[in-house]
């Protein structure tokens, strides 16, 4: 994604800013620490806090071997070793500092780590092992290594185990699914409250809310939420993600997309058809940072991410 800056930050920085920056890199390598320091030290608009640390990491990855090689070539092998040792020392300090910050709760988990927490569960890992065993069994049968009686017996055992694990996985996701639905309902209600007026496109608190809240009513019903139904699908598109054209599918309150003219339910911030950001009352929710900006901006003025 392109970052639009009002002015290159480096040109505006004074030597004391650069010293503070190096200090920030060494002692506050985490995203939050760096962002805080930027806000207090610099007078330029804060660049994306997701981008600069990555750029610094990239710069370090490029600078470190380059400086080591330069030292080696110009000053000798021994000095090259010393340069390597110096960079490793910086890395050690950075790693332990971040580790201590994690320990004391000063840093938030980044997106990658949060996603990593949702890594495979024991049942998922066991399922993979069983499927692998099934694959091996099929192969052994195809090359005649196993007789048919044993094949059927083993295959039945493995399939039974796989079914048990799949059921266990589904069951373990039940609570999480309900929680997700609750959170979604709350967010939809919050967004509905934020749009104050009824409009010509048929928004109303009564019947339209039935249509608008078709999804929450369905979801809060007794039936388990089908995994393959889109969370904001209407009645017509209950059978799956591959709904007919949005203009036909959306019957409740909706907005028209400026890019493709398709209509998407009011609750959505992105067009169902092309994914572009939809404006609510002329305000667009940035896809990167949690800020809203006017519909006439091409990019977010806070982080510079495009629509």
């Amino acid at each position, binding site marked *: 994604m392109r970052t639009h800056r009002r002015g290159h930050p480096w040109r505006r920085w004074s030597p004391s800013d650069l010293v503070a920056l190096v200090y920030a890199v060494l002692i506050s390598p985490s995203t939050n620490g760096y962002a805080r320091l930027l806000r207090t030290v610099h007078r330029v608009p804060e660049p994306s806090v997701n981008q600069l640390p990555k750029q610094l990491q990239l710069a370090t990855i490029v600078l470190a071997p380059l400086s080591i090689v330069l030292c080696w070539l110009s000053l000798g092998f*021994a000095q090259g070793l010393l340069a390597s040792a110096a960079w490793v020392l910086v890395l050690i300090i950075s790693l332990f500092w971040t580790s201590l910050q994690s320990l004391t709760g000063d840093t938030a988990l980044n997106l990658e780590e949060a996603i990593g927490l949702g890594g495979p569960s024991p049942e998922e890992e066991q399922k993979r092992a069983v499927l692998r065993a099934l694959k091996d069994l099929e192969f052994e049968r195809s090359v005649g290594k196993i007789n048919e009686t*044993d094949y059927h017996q083993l295959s039945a055992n493995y399939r039974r185990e796989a079914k048990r694990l799949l059921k266990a996985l589904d069951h373990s996701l039940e609570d999480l699914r309900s929680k997700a639905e609750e959170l979604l309902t709350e967010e939809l209600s919050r967004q509905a409250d934020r749009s104050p007026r009824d409009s010509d496109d048929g928004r109303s608190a009564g019947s339209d809310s039935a249509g608008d809240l078709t999804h929450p009513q369905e979801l809060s019903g007794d039936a388990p939420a089908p995994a393959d139904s889109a969370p904001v699908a209407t009645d017509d598109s209950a059978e799956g993600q591959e709904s007919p054209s949005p203009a036909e599918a959306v019957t409740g309150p909706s907005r028209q997309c400026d890019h493709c003219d398709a209509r998407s339910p009011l609750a959505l911030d992105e067009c169902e058809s092309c994914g572009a950001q939809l404006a609510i009352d002329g305000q667009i929710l940035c896809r990167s940072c949690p800020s809203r900006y006017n519909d006439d901006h091409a990019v977010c003025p806070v982080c510079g991410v495009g629509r």
Partner: protein
Amino acid sequence: MWQSLPEFGTALLYSILVCAAYTFAVALTAGGGKPRLLRAARLGTYGTCALVMLAVLVLAYAFVTHDFRIRYVARYSERSMTNTYLLTALWGGQDGSLLWWTFLLSGYTTAVTIWLKGKYRSLQPYVIATLMVIMSFFAVLMLFAANPFETSFAGARLDGEGLNPLLRNFYMIIHPPSLYMGFVGCSVPFAFAIAALATGRLDNEWIAATRKWMLFAWLFLSIGNCLGMLWAYEELGWGGYWAWDPVENAACLPWFTATAYVHSTMIQERRNMLKVWNLVLICTTFFLTIFGTFLTRAGLIASVHAFAKSDIGIYFVYFMALIIAVPAGLIVWRLPLLRSRGRIESVVSREGAFVVNNWVLLGACTFIGVATIFPRISEWLWDETVTVGPPFFNRWMVPIGLSLLALMGVAPLLAWRKSSTANLAAAARFPLISATVAAVLHLSLGSRFGFPGVVPNDAFYDGVLGIVLQKLGSVAPVVTVGLVAFNFAVVGQEFYRGAVARRRQHAEPWGSALLRLVQKSRRRYGGYIVHIGISLMFLGFAGRAWTLETEANMSPGDKIEIGDYSLTYAGPRMELDAEKRMVFADVDVSQDGVAVGRISPARFIYKSSRSSPTTEVALHRTLKNDLYAVVAIVNPTTKRATFRFHVNPLVSWLWIGVSILICGCLLSLWPEVSLQEMGVWATVRMTAGVLSGVMFGILLASMAAGSGAARGADPPPRAPLAAVVAQ
């Protein structure tokens, strides 16, 4: 000069201990499902590993700058050494080799920690904690028993003592690191085993993860042992490649148990059996790596390879006691969860064959281990030191080795659970015919080519046992050839049947069917390729039965015959370089009347150790045999020289077999399941592949260069490989 370098280095060792302890504590606390603490533990792991790297860099700097205040640097380096050998000296002595071990452990720990990201979340903390305990042990060892940064009492010398001349060669650069990669790699499966026991997560998914790490360690154990054989063959000059030295034995013990594990783990994956057995194998493998290190460093057994005796032994004893006690306690605690749900229904089944294979491997391991420490055992029991030498091992390992070779061929023919007689007969028909034909051909035609099928030898013992062993030893060559043919036929048949099955299902041409077959089942077919490699190695071992050797005192112009070769001593010559004086004795070689070139065995007299000249072997290699020449003495006045010549048949097949083994192992390591794994594993594989490829590429190129030299090109001033690294 960096004035505080020794103190800084020692401070780094203390830091490693403290940081490993911190990471251990945080990891254990994260075991309760606390993601923030787990993150802290992961970062602590990276930091601790980086500290080890820093210590290595600082020691390397001390070597390169000739900081002779440090006792270790003064002992193992000198000013005339090149940077390559200065860095090699890092692991040339005890203290530095312990730091090198810790460095490799930190590399593995980093790789595992990266690989574990998002996987096996409940096991992660305990894997990290276990690895930190091992790292702490080595830090304690270095701090209190073998500090590589310790300074000399007498202060800095003008020059150091230099590296042992025997270690100044190409193999010294690569053999210890690759062997240590194998030893240290066994820590990772051990850490997983402890984590699985601690968490109670004893289902099969962690076994699949551990298998790859164990296979990787096994690969480097194989490479390391092979390079040791090459080093012994080309440097030590006694004509062979394996002398059953205690250190050599200690290096191969974990190889046996690791081999047993990579087979028996399949039983657990398939049949959910042998869980306790697999855990015991993993823990035993790790224990043997520590035990082997203890043997070479504690002075328990005398060996040409051993480090100087030191006080380090007691630390190893305590650590080994910990390694035994903790896993044993955990296994007993988790025994209810480890009970198998299945049982072996028939010995004539794949599981049965693997169990028998495991017993044979473990038996071989136990036999070699007990025989190695027998001098100590006999001393404790009978107050008498009884040593066992190569003849004892060579006699007893023949039936054990042949059993393994036979099992290796039979197991792929058997089906899981049980094999019907009809299935087995159909599967075994072609291999049995191949083996019989090969054995008959060998018996009838072998003598014509210098490889008789039956080679009489002397009885080693009196009585029935002696006779049985003698007979077995006599027929071992033809039995080996038959079993090698059997194994080749089995593997060929497996490829054929798999390709036929694919063609039936997918209507593919033969080439595509074979390729896709291997692609879809890399683990299986990589294993078959490894079997081919091992079969070829057995062929190389069998060549020892036909070895010829002779000793001769010759004047220039004298001729001697040995086997097919006719050798004429041309005369001596001398060369000098900065480090040493080189005395060559040129010998012209003819085979069956045709001149094939000149070989030049030599003696190198290093300035730093004039009393211990080294022997430089000259080799003329062919696929059929190696002509191996060593010069013992050269009289400068009369120019008479005393030579020892060997003709070692089929040795080249040993090295070819190892190359094929490596290829098969790399194929098995290729991931089959998840693209997500490929990130770290692609790097690890690439590294392993590049390392293996470079090592053997240089080796094979130098073999070719050496052979070319013997075929009439100008004789090189020294043995080819040494010339490559002399720069």
